[in-house]
């Protein structure tokens, strides 16, 4: 819990500085977060490599591992369909399309903006960013109440990169391989599913 609070503080600090600091004074390149991400993935690789148990698990799991991305798809669509009745200006199909971003906000919001316009595109962008942020912040809580697959499910397509460090931290490195697998499958199907619903 303490580490989640620290993470939120750093995120808030980032927004604050990003909003107020003139970019002519301090220039923070978007590439920097890409490099930080790659560094993290490298670190995760190290923790996987020095513990060979992970590879025994992926052998043992074989077909079972397919149920993870499948659960994410079914659960996400059921969830957004259930709340679609709350919105007067967003249709069921639009809700399903936003949900099908699975946290992959850059790609899904571009598709949705192109097909359905900017308002829906912004909602898709925010919704999928929030999905990633909630995963980063709430993973310990998710593990506690819904088991160790829950942060992977919550992370959706991001469970292969941005949320992988936090998932590994709270679900254990045994779940890192499952996380990468699920995130990879979801990342690949995002463009197909988003356009299918619109």
């Amino acid at each position, binding site marked *: 819990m303490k580490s989640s609070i620290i993470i939120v503080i*750093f*995120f*808030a*600090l*980032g*927004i604050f*500085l*990003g909003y107020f600091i003139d970019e002519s004074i301090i220039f*923070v390149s978007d590439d920097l*977060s890409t490099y*930080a991400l*790659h560094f*993290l*993935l*490298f*670190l*995760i*690789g*190290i*923790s*996987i*490599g*020095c513990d*060979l*148990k992970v590879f025994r698990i992926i052998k043992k799991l074989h077909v079972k591992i397919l149920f993870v991305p499948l*659960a*994410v798809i079914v*659960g*996400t669509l059921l*969830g*957004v369909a*259930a*709340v679609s009745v709350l*919105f007067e200006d967003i249709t069921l199909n639009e809700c399903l399309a*936003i*949900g099908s971003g699975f946290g992959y906000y850059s790609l899904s919001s571009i598709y949705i903006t192109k097909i359905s316009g900017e*308002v829906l595109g*912004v*909602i898709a962008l*925010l*919704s999928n*960013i*929030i999905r990633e942020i909630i995963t980063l912040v709430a993973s310990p809580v*998710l593990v506690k*109440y*819904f*088991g*160790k*697959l*829950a942060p992977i*499910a919550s992370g959706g397509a991001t469970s292969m*990169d941005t949320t992988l*460090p936090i998932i590994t*931290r709270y*679900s*254990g*490195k*045994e779940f890192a391989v499952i996380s*990468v697998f699920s995130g990879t499958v979801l*990342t690949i199907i995002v463009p197909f599913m988003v356009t299918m619903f619109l």
Partner: protein
Amino acid sequence: MNTVLICLILGSLLGYIIREKKNFLKHLDKITFFSVLALLFLLGFSVGKDPVIIRNLHNLGLQALILSVAAILGSAIVSFIVYKLFFKDIKADEK
């Protein structure tokens, strides 16, 4: 996506080579945590400097929040069923 796989594979190889160096591996969790902090700070920074996101934050944010919470709860519940059925036997290694 290729870069992701390359980073993971290179890391794994290094991890395999240095798997006996317990001193270094002890600090790995700490380094990982600081990297997460840096990443989140940078994510916040790019949200903060984007006027489109900031301006629409309160209007569309609520709808977006409802959708994300629903998506997370839905997938967490279905994944809980899958976890109970197939993954319960994977034990986390306690330190």
